[in-house]
């Protein structure tokens, strides 16, 4: 096989693409993954980070619900360092119908979800941030999951199994011979070079952008872009996920994650052309705060860090204008049987929770087409970094008395944190004080994890995700990148892009302390640092 020939090319560096690359590589295929931006830049990095128990879908979609709970249990094992086992409540408020609760519990149990009715007073004792007016509570095995970490771990493992990854590389067209896709044409946005890569099978795992990729191959997939807006609060208000026990609606899930919590989402149909530049409107912000405060009243007075929005890659099935009644189900299309186009398959629909199952389904299809008889092992093989009981336990394996910085790194990297064992005091010094990210961790990410800029670095280390939103750590990390890449001009331009990207999520919530922080940051960058 030539240098630019592969068994399979995967288009898309979100969680589905990363999971598929891992699965294919583990089954011995020669894999190339191509991503237009960075890992986790689409819907993967723009959701709640909810480890769904499936309860949310139990009443409306039993199939999705049972997929969720199975994958939920698998992720706790294979990605323990990405998962926080918080549990979740579905609460009934006075304006909700308490009769829904019985149907909800029954549906959960039918899907295999351990749903237990808890006395409202007891529930409030377990999660004191909840609305004290609640009249019903059901406990389910929800949790939270760090989608950036999960995606990076899949990508890393795919590479450890021999997969190649091309970031900032866009598929511009397909190489076709008769009724067969033979490969892709690409354009690298960093090197500004075009290239061609060949494979027996190309997997379209581009999420909502899969519609466009399909068009390049002359097949049609009708996507249903549904924008969902979310808010990040500056404190972890709740320790347990809080949901509303009713038919899914706006802003009815509050998920704790690391040091913050996230409320969402809205659901608005948007034209396909707007998928690339979604913004959160003041109306959406108002709605999220208003509805969020019904779940946890403290949200009304808690500082907001940022607003962001993602686009669900739903495949349109009916004419429901809200997009809520479309199944979140997995769609795996063999374009050979569907459209008479060989060598091309699409994996879409689904959700973060079911990424592994989606990867398994499409890898099964790829293997069938290539007549390869290998079974999937991703449900039982832990991802790099998984396997520790808790971040404390992991940190104590490597350090006698771990510092908070070492514990934070263990939380992010799991058992893979061991490579900092010999780090000296200079490596331990902090770049990002909000998220406790050290010099050593950043340098290691730059060396090992395909970091070309600050925003890439943020997705892999959480630099700039904390309260200050990058005002101090942005510069410090830019200094390290300038040194690592030997180019200060590039680092400075990159710093500008990074701050612009941070600001995009700040100005929709730009009042109170957030505006104070912004004024300070804008002052420092302009007048003190002279950026």
């Amino acid at each position, binding site marked *: 096989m030539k240098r630019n020939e592969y068994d399979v090319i995967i288009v898309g560096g979100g969680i589905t693409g990363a999971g598929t690359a891992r699965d294919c590589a583990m089954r011995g295929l020669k894999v190339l993954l191509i991503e237009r931006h960075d890992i986790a830049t689409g819907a993967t990095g723009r959701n709640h980070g909810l480890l769904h128990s499936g309860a949310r879908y139990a009443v409306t979609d039993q199939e999705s619900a049972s997929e969720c709970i199975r994958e939920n249990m698998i992720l706790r094992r294979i990605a323990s360092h990405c998962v926080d086992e918080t549990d979740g409540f579905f609460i009934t408020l006075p304006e909700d119908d308490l009769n829904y609760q019985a149907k909800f519990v029954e549906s959960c149990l039918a899907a295999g979800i351990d749903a237990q009715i808890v006395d409202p007073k007891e529930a409030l004792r377990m999660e004191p941030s909840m609305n004290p007016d609640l009249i019903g509570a059901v406990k389910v095995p929800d949790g939270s999951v760090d989608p950036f970490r999960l995606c990076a771990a899949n990508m890393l493992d795919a590479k450890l199994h021999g997969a190649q990854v091309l970031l900032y590389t866009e598929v511009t067209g397909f190489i076709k011979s008769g009724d067969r896709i033979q490969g892709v044409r690409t354009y690298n946005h960093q090197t500004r070079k075009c290239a061609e890569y060949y494979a027996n099978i190309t997997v379209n795992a581009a999420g909502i952008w899969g519609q466009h990729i399909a068009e390049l191959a002359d097949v049609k997939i009708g996507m249903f872009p549904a924008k969902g807006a979310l808010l990040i609060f500056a404190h972890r208000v709740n320790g347990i996920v809080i949901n509303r026990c009713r038919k899914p609606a706006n802003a009815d899930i509050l998920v704790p994650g690391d040091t913050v919590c996230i409320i969402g989402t809205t659901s608005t149909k948007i034209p396909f052309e707007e998928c690339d530049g979604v913004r959160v409107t003041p109306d959406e912000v108002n709605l999220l705060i208003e509805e969020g405060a019904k779940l946890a009243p403290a949200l009304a007075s808690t500082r907001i860090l940022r607003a962001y929005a993602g686009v669900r890659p739903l495949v349109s099935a009916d004419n429901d204008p809200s997009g809520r009644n479309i199944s979140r189900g997995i769609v795996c299309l063999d374009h050979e049987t569907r459209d008479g186009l060989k060598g091309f398959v699409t994996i879409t629909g689904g959700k973060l929770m079911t990424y592994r199952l989606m990867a398994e389904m499409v890898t099964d299809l790829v293997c069938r087409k290539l007549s390869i008889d290998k079974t999937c092992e991703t449900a039982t093989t832990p991802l790099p970094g998984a396997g520790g009981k808790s971040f404390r336990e992991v940190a104590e394996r490597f350090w006698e008395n771990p510092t908070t910085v070492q514990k934070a790194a263990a939380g992010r990297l799991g058992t893979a944190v061991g490579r900092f064992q010999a780090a000296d*005091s*200079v490596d331990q010094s902090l770049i990002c004080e909000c998220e406790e990210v050290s010099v050593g961790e950043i340098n290691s990410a730059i060396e090992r994890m395909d970091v070309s800029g600050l925003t890439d670095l943020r997705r892999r280390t959480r630099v700039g995700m904390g309260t200050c939103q990058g005002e101090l750590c942005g510069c410090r990390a830019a*200094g390290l990148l300038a040194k690592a890449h030997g180019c200060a001009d590039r680092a400075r331009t990159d710093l500008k892009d990074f701050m612009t990207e941070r600001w995009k999520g700040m100005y929709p919530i*730009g009042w109170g302390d957030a505006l104070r922080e912004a004024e300070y940051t804008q002052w420092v960058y302009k007048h*003190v640092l*002279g950026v």
Partner: protein
Amino acid sequence: MKFDTVIIGGGLAGLTAGISLQETGRKVAIVSAGQNSMHFFSGNFEDAGPAKERTAALFAAAGVRMSALEGVLLMPMGTFRQASLTLEDVTVFPDEHVAEKALIVNFTGFHDFYGTFLAEALEKRGTTCRIRFVRLPEMEHLRLSPSEMRSVNIARAMDEHWEKVVADIRILHKDEDLILLPQVFGLKDASVLDKIRTALPARVAFIGTMPPSVPGIRTQMLLRRRFELLGGTFLMGDEVTSAALHEGVVSSITTRNLDTVRLFADHFILASGGFFSKGLVSTPTQVYEPLFGLDIDYPEDRNAWYDADFFADQPYMDYGVRTDAQLHAMKDGEPMKNLFAVGSVLGNTRREDYGTAAGLAIRTAFAVADIIKGGNV
């Protein structure tokens, strides 16, 4: 307690007005919350305009040494800015070709000073650069905590150990005609800067770091000391809790620390700063001045408060307290009789008349002090 003037805010504007009034023997109190914009000051007044000489004189009397050279500053991220009046340890170059060869010296593990950016900027302009690091055993204790290698902590260590660093730099130095150092020297006493210049074998330039700003903090301490030596009352770490207003006149205020003791004065000066300093407060629907409820012009539609470009001039920075031509603060469309507003609480739009933020602070402070001194209220 009765004063001639009570000033709310102990930053550049408040201190300038306070010193200016106190110099003529008036009884002035400054209520200061603590940290202020001086802690993030680049040391460059950019354009002090007609107040340049008067500013230099007021600062000189306080022991703050200024440089009135026209030229350019090398900023921390490797860009150049115009300068006409700066603090003395902010190095001004006559033009952008600063040297033939430069030695850039940093402390190992100090991430708030960017040698790489400076070197690239200088090399583009024909200066050959070397970056070297020094590491003192006397500073190693700072590393015990991962967040202690910051400008002010290093500056505290340097007050004691600067001679050891100078000795290390003398060893590192080859034939460079310029040595670049971070601004972490002379926190307590700026005369150390001269001693460093004398002891090193090449011209020395001090370049800014990430905040906090060591020159800014030193300047704030000197100005405060000057104000107190002149007899002023500086209420540190205190904040105004209420104000008594009647028919356009402020008669007294209360503060958190003084509890029930009212501060009476003939004049009040609001120098409470912008949003960061809480001189202005924003909510999802409003921008307001929290102490007196003064008039502020801003659009109701929150979308109009921001520019999507982080580095553009942000509309929200323009919002500030409305005043008449003599800087009397306006409330309900009428000028207050004895309440003036100076500095950043006026908002950015006023900077067109007064230069940059530092220029605005100093010039409005002088203007109000003159009005009060002239009795022309």
